[in-house]
Each structure stands twice: as C-alpha cells, then as structure tokens.
C-alpha cells in the first residue's frame, strides 16, 4: 500500500534521488514528500533529529535516514530485483566503493569548487586520481553491478550528476577524454529506464547548480 511508504526528499538532492531510483527499480509505490531545504518541515526534523537532512524513508511510520542505509533496508524488505550483490565479498566491495564515493570523491569535488587560485591545481589533481581509482573498478563491466544497475551504480549517481551539472560550474572535472570509461558508464546510467524517470530535467539541474554556487561563491 502506497500510504505505508513515504519518502521525504528534495528533487535537487542526489541522495534523495538514489532512494527514488531503487524504489523505481523495485516497483515500490510511495508517497513523495518534497522538502524545502531552506525551510525544513517539523516532520523531517522529528524523523531525522540527528542529521536533519533528506532523504528520510518512512515505512509503517518508522523512519530511516542516510541514503545508503535506506537502500539496504529497502533491499532487505522487498527482496525481488536485488540491488546488492548476493556474494558477501561482492557486497563488501560494493559497500566499500559506495563509502569511497561519499567520503572521498564528493569532498574532493567540493574542494575543487571552493579552492582558491593557488590550491585549485592540486585539488583537481586529487579529484582526478580518485575518479580514476573508481573508474578502474568498472573493470570491463557494463555497470558496477554487472549487466544491470546495482548498489554501487546507484551510489555513483553523484558522479553522473557531476557529469551533467559541471558545465554550470564552468568546469570539466569529469573530462570524457581523461575518463572515457567512466563517461560511457554515465551515459549508460542516464539511459537506464528507472534512472531516466527519476533524474531531474537537465536545464532545471543546471539552473539550480548555477544559482547555488553563485550564492556560495558570488557570481563568476
């Protein structure tokens, strides 16, 4: 029943989008609650008092926060079309690389955006190295998950969003010449049915990204 499943999120949050992709892949109906992140609802703050962030997943009235934890919960509760691999070692690797994306790649990308003139070169070099490391994990596969989207592909959506939105920031961090394999993977992900249905329209995302960074850094 759709009313038992709710997702508090924001259209502009790739972390919310991760959960939406998985819900789509599993064909799970849910009520989408769109949050205004500049004015978070009392319900969101009640359901995620620790981090006060989206996404928050509500199932039978019980809240879960943190996108990757939500996805594991969904995978364990709705067992069809598994998102995580079956083999424990492959699961460990998927979790490891998803953590790497969130804890290493994301901050490195931010650093390149916020770096002053003097630090920018080094920041870009670091981000490039990390992206290259991730790219190697594809290892000839169509997706990180193999023939179809899996946990790591979903977690990797932030890389896809970077590819799409980087032009709004006047950057080319994920250069398709430097990262041909990652670039091709991005295209395959963008072409996936579930992903397509959940991805915000490109122009909307670009406008949002532009506005957000101008607010941060001042207009370029």
């Amino acid at each position: 029943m759709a009313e038992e499943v709710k997702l508090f999120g924001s259209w502009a949050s790739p972390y919310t989008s991760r959960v939406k992709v998985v819900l789509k892949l599993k064909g799970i109906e849910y009520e989408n609650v769109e949050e205004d992140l500049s004015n978070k609802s009392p319900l969101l703050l009640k359901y995620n008092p620790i981090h006060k962030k989206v996404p928050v997943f509500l199932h039978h009235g019980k809240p879960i926060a943190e996108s990757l934890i939500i996805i594991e919960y969904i995978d364990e509760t709705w067992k069809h079309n598994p998102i995580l691999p079956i083999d424990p070692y492959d699961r460990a690797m998927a979790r490891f690389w998803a953590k790497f994306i969130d804890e290493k790649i994301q901050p490195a990308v931010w650093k390149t955006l916020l770096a002053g003139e003097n630090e920018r070169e080094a920041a870009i070099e670091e981000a490039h190295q990390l992206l290259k490391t991730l790219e190697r994990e594809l290892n000839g596969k169509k997706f990180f998950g193999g023939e179809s989207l899996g946990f790591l592909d979903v977690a990797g959506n932030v890389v896809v969003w970077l590819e799409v939105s980087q032009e709004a920031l006047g950057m080319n961090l994920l250069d398709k010449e430097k990262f041909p394999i990652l670039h091709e993977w991005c295209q395959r992900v963008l072409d996936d049915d579930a992903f397509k249905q959940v991805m915000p329209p490109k122009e909307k995302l670009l406008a949002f990204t532009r506005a957000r960074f101008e607010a941060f850094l001042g207009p370029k």
Partner: protein
Amino acid sequence: MAQEVKLFGMWASLYSRRIEIALKMKGVQFEFIEEDLQNKSPLLLKHNSIHKKVPVLLHNGMPIAESLIILEYIDETWLDNPILPRDPYDRAMARFWARFIDEKLIWISWDAFSSKEEDQGKAIEEACKQLKALENELKEKEFFGGDTLGYLDIAAIMVASWFGVMQEVMKVELLTEENFPILCQWVGKFVDCPIVKECLPRKEKMVEFTRVLLKDFLASK
C-alpha cells in the same frame, strides 16, 4: 577446507579490536598481524592501497578494509552467533548508529577534548547532546544488541574505551556517570564481557600510547 583468515591490525587501534571481537564471537580462527603504523608493511599497503589503514581482513587471499564493512562481511560469511539483528528495521538502526559513532560522535567529541578554553564549553555541550542521543538508543536493554553483544556494541567500543582514555589524557570530563548513568552502566557490562576483556588493551597502556601520539598537540596547549 581450512579457511585462511588473517587480520592486519594494531594493538591500540579500536577499529582493529572491533574485528577481533567479532571473529572471536564467531569462533573463527585467524592469524593476527601486528602492524607498525609508522612503518606499514608492503602487504598492508597492497591489500588496502586506497586508505592504507588497519584493520584489513584477508579471507582466502581476498582483502576487505573499513571496520564496519568487515563486520558485515564476517556476519554474512560465518552465520553462527549473528551480530547484526534479524529484523531489517533493527539492522538499519544498528547501521545508522554505528555510522553516527564513527562519522559524527567521535569528531564532535574530539572537538570537545581539543578545543581552546574559550570554545570548550560549547563544544562539550554539543558532544554531550550527541552522547545523550546514543544513550537513548539503549532504552531498557542490557546491550545495544539486546541480551547479548551485537554489531552496535562492537562499534561502540569507541565509547567504552576511547572516551575514558581521552578524558585522562586531555583532562576533560565528558562521559560521566552523573550525566550518563545508563551509558556508563553499558560500558561496565561491555568491558566485563569475557571476549571483550581478551581483546581490549589495558587502559593505562592506551593512555600512555595516546599521550605519545598527541605529544605535539599537548605541548602546544
């Protein structure tokens, strides 16, 4: 077929001790390889080329890094004495709070321990708020895992050991019986568990080690 299980760790690393506890709870035989973190072995750097840290579990030659990820791997590979709860919601909560400890609590507490005097009051207040949130998760239970040690108890070794050590080294009170009676009671039960007793280094040794580790920082204060 004999399974080959090796653990690259370090005696003072609580992350490393997490894995020892889990392996012992499951009765898994393993070889412990003590790393000198000032002079990491080529094997460690090969098996954890990304982070170059302990612990690393090597199972039949396949390496896994990151303690919480290793714990889940152990639970999914050796099915006796499960350490994660059965119920998906309880599992989600255990994972949430374990990550909370590693990603939020420790850092906020480090701020409280290391802040300059003028900022310390506020930092301590914030750290206490986070500790209280974790304490509330115990509810009426003996352990976070219920009647016996579970994943979150193992993760919370940081609370059971690191806080006490840091409080002594930095001379800042945070986790007190007065303010956190339930959490402190859990600490007592946790360190008293036979397997934990085997794995936890003596507090004095940890304090001495930490004093040396932080000597430059302490000198600058």
